[in-house]
């Protein structure tokens, strides 16, 4: 095969999913329709959104998925992107308004707006967006799919495998949206940056614990890769070590990145008030 054929082959989905395609295409379509202005700041936000969306699609609907099914560390990398990196970029771009604006008016008026107004739905979203609940879900999902017996079955069963990856992507969006969305539930007071930063630090530790546990284990914890065959001959020990390291180091690093973004926003928010207080002092 020529290199060109190889690259095209790599871009074709390993297991085609109409759902992933439909969701990604709809999101892209809504975003394009909803984009009005093109100031420099807006262009940067659009770049964040597109990077996140393309990364998610690439993780699920290219030949990369084959490698993620047959190599533990590539599976960890897939989850790092689905749960940490891509949702981080998308949530940071705050695409909500644009996506909503991109909806055709009849759908917006007759379907989405009543849904947004529905008290039950609001209650549920508010509930899972509680910082503590969202954090437990975020860490809990990582732990759940890494229980060796659960992991074994999830890698063999297509529906469970899809549920796992979807769950990671959706939960990632919920978590990072909670982190970067500073409006409180009743829409009045802003939430406090410090609380968010503390939360980001707290979710690091359980991830470090499980990552280190996997990386330092002498046992082959995830035997399914040996059973089904690895994507290329790599020793199970090395595979598990790299996979553990990704969960140990790279995943918590996204917390640091998130905290830096929040710090910057916090400082910016304080700048005018600092200037104000200095002006007051000068006057007195």
């Amino acid at each position, binding site marked *: 095969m020529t290199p060109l054929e190889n690259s095209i082959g790599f871009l074709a989905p*390993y*297991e085609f999913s109409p759902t992933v395609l439909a969701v990604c295409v709809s999101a892209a379509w809504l975003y394009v329709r909803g984009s009005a202005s093109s100031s420099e700041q807006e262009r940067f936000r659009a770049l964040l959104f597109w990077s996140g969306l393309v990364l998610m699609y690439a993780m699920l609907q290219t030949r990369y998925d*084959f490698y993620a*099914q*047959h190599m533990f560390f590539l599976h960890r990398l897939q989850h790092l992107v689905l749960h940490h990196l891509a949702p981080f970029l998308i949530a940071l771009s705050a695409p909500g308004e644009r996506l909503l604006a991109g909806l055709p008016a009849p759908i917006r008026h007759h379907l989405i707006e009543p849904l947004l107004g529905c008290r039950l739905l609001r209650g549920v979203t508010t509930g899972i967006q509680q910082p*503590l609940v969202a*954090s*437990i879900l975020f*860490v*809990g999902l990582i*732990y*759940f799919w890494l*229980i*060796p*017996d659960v992991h074994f*079955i999830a*890698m*063999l*069963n*297509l529906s469970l495998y899809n549920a796992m990856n979807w769950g990671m992507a959706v939960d990632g969006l919920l978590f990072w949206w909670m982190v970067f969305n500073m409006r409180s539930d009743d829409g009045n007071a802003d939430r406090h940056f410090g609380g968010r930063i503390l939360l980001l630090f*707290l979710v690091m*530790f*359980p991830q470090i*614990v*499980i990552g280190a*546990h996997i990386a330092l284990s002498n046992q082959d*914890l995830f*035997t399914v890769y*040996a*059973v*089904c*065959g*690895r*994507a*290329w*001959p790599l020793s199970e020990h090395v595979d598990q070590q790299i996979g553990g390291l990704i969960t140990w180091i790279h995943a918590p690093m996204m917390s640091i990145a998130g905290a830096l973004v929040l710090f910057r926003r916090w400082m910016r928010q304080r700048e005018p008030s600092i200037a104000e207080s200095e002006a007051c002092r000068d006057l007195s």
Partner: protein
Amino acid sequence: MSRSLLIALLLPLLLVPACGRNESPWQGRNIQGVMPDLAFSLTDDSGHTVTGANFAGKIVLLYFGFTHCEDVCPTTLSTLTKAVRTAGYDADQVRIVFVSVDPRRDTPEVLRSYSAHFSPYVTGLSGTEAQLGDVARRYRVAYNYGEPDADGDYEVYHSSAIFVFDARGKVRLLLQQQQLDAAAVANDLRRLMVSAS
């Protein structure tokens, strides 16, 4: 708040000791309902197309390998053959389906003389790249080839799984080639036969 936070942080730790295996009296791991039913389209050692339906009514042990495999594949096939014989079944009741993932070297003739060695229990199958790819995707297995040496011989890396299907073509057990015991497999086969009848 601080107490629930503490619980939130410690809860995941409780899950770690829960990772142990549960003891099973079966040699194979129960994967009933986990994987799809027996279905494929491949070529047999006389060049005819064979599908999963050709094995209706038989217990099938599905295994992926290649005939140039020096020890693992022949050992696995002879242990499985021994297990079927020990269980007291004939080839009409149980069939070991050996899928070669090395179609370049494993022509129908090569496959025929290879499986004749284990006959009548082993059926050797292979197929085009696309056919093998479909079976591999369906049963979530991977295989790949090593670099050829000076004589053009190369290693083939493949899954170590043996998927066991009951007489109705439903997946039942997962055996692993590293931990095969003929007597224990024979026991599993008898239990499968009883549960099917």
